[in-house]
């Protein structure tokens, strides 16, 4: 009994280690080239990662709306706009994501318009 349970424990530990490694790998791949949000500059192509702090639905007309969100890391925040979208699957408050695109602006704020995005699992440690 005890042996078996020890073996099971070992298995679990191994699995956990494997999962961690997998997340690490995932993070390493997804987060490659990510810069702190504070270093974002207008008209530069950037890749940043952060947490969704606020979500905004900006209606332009009855049909057309855009989803805006504020993405924050430890250094600052950036507005991310998904034009024409009302919602994006998995994008909710507190979600972690990587976005990549060229910095534009919206209403006097720096913003990424329709960037490429990845959702990250909670377990991934953000670099900044």
């Amino acid at each position, binding site marked *: 009994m005890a042996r078996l349970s020890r073996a099971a424990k070992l298995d679990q530990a191994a699995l956990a280690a494997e999962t961690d490694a997998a997340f690490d790998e995932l993070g390493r791949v997804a987060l490659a080239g990510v810069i702190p949000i504070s270093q974002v500059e207008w008209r530069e192509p950037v890749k940043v990662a952060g947490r969704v702090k*606020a*979500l905004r639905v900006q*209606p332009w007309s*009855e049909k057309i709306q855009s989803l805006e969100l504020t993405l924050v890391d430890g250094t600052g925040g950036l507005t991310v706009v998904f034009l024409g979208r*009302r919602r994006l699957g998995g994008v*909710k*408050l507190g979600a972690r994501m990587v976005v990549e695109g060229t910095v534009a602006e919206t209403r006097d704020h720096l913003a990424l318009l329709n960037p490429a995005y990845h959702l990250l699992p909670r377990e991934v440690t953000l670099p900044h």
Partner: protein
Amino acid sequence: MAAPTKDLAGRQPLPPTPKIDIPESRSYRLKSKLLGKPLNTDQLESERLGKPTALATFASDNLSSAAYATEEILHTLLVVGAVGLVAFDYVLPITLAMIAVLGVLVLSYRQTIKAYPSAGGAYIVTKDNLGVLPAQVAGVALLIGYTLTVSVSVSAAASALYSMVDGAYPYRIPIALFFIAVIAFGNLRGVKESGKIFAVPTYTFMVAMAFMVGYGVIKALTGDLAEVTPDAEQAEELSHVGTVGFFLILQAFASGGAAVTGVEAISNGVPAFKEPAWKNARTTLVIMGSILGVMFLGISWLASQVKPVPVEGKTVVAQIAEAVYGSAGFGQVMFGFTLIATMLILVMAANTSYADFPRLASFQAEDAFLPRQLTKRGHRLVFSNGIVALSIASAALVLAFGADVSRLIPLYAIGVFTSFTLAQLGMLRHHVRLKEPKWRTGVLINGTGSLVTALVTIVVGITQFPKGAWMVIAAVPILVWVIVRLNHQYETEREELMGDAELAATAPILRRHTVLVLIDRIDRTAARAIQYARTLTPDELRAVHIAVEDQHAAELADQWSHLALARLPLEIRECPDRRINRSVLELVAEAAADGQTEVTILIPRREYRSAWHRLLHDRTADAIAKAIGDVPHANVTFVPYHLTQTSHGQHIHKVAHGAVSGTANAATRKGDNGSGGR
């Protein structure tokens, strides 16, 4: 006269002021019913009093002291000192000494009246001559004195009542409190300083005392005046044999000091006299002093003849009256008349404090040494807050000391004599400083006055210290310290608020205006707030929801996106720790971060008519407003929505346009002084 131009044709003049249909609150209606219709400020009038009415108005405090001063002297000698029969030999000399002090005070205050005909009183005189801090000492001492005047007077009035009505003694505290309540009510209603109300009790008392003393003297001369037959308790007190030591004499003298309280009343009210005000006031003061002197002397002389012993349940005046008039027929009537007159003048004396305390408190509050609220005139143009404060304080004293005059007296004289001394010193300084004609006489009079009053203060302080004066001696410095702190606070505030105010008002305004509407759910309160926000046409307008519950937030976002509300974006902000205040604070700080933006937070708020409703809902809106108040350039506007309740218990809503919301929107809080960050 020109014909109306084309442009103006068809224009109407301004419409009459629309009637605003806001029902008065229940408490206000109750107040109006109790206190009478509210008075307009221009109804504030000051009656000018002739000498006889003025005497009645101002003398009640002073003259009423005669009702208990002799008793207190006897109480000290017989009960505290336990010297027995020999006490009655000392009553008259001590009374004479006190009358000498009274004489000095009258002479001194004649000077004050002349020097300060507009607004006299120890506080003003001290402030003018000795500086602000001594004035606060005088002010505090006087406020304590006025409070004690009420407590002592109503307690003494209660004692007059229970001397007359058998079996009333156990109810003396409720009786005394009842007197306070009646006086407070009358003053809140605004009993005018109308001499007629005062004249009756004051003159009745004078007549009663004159009659009693006169009749007593005649009886004594004819040898008819019998001594009081002592009951067991009194015999017990008389059976002591003791020697009267110097300290005991001083103690008795200090107890008698209560007799001269109220002398300052006339100097406080000189403007109320008919012209020439100061001359009339001086004459009245002398008349008042003489009458008090004669009455006090007469009562003390009678006391030394009939030898009454102060006991519970029957005052000395009552015993004297009984001895003088006897208990048969006519005597019974005169006995009742004397005691009723005594009771009435004592109530009137308490009433005097209700004129003086609120006024002095308002002076001090105007100098920023007491809370500002005390300067406000209330519903009926009286200083309501001062009246309420005085009532509470004096009622507390009555309760604490069991409406026992003998226990209150040791506290009484010290405060009054402290303010006398300061006022006299102030006058001395006044003469030396200004050197007006005949200033040397003034120096002599007020010099003597300050010396005598200072001596009495010291005597009272020492002899009465263990019996209760220590409370006042301890309280005065503490209270002065408190009000000096208070003043410091007010001054600091004033400095910050007034500093470069003009510059701040003309400074360039911030470039941007962001309006954030806090939304909890889409309902009528939110709709009202959004409608209002849209009239503001700011640079940026957002609805914000602080997401405490993800599910609720998601539903709201969904609902919102279907509404497509006038291109108004809804922002859902995370609030993982459920501290809404904090999240809003962060939101505001973010919006104002560039230093170029005025941020307005609109908070829809349900207004409840009844306390019951208020209880049912938390005060999140107020808490948020309070938190934001600290951020520079952050402003909070409540957008009210009135919930009303019909008699059937149904909620009906008011259509939210119109006068109601228009006025209530003014409830805007400003979070900054406009001069940038701090």
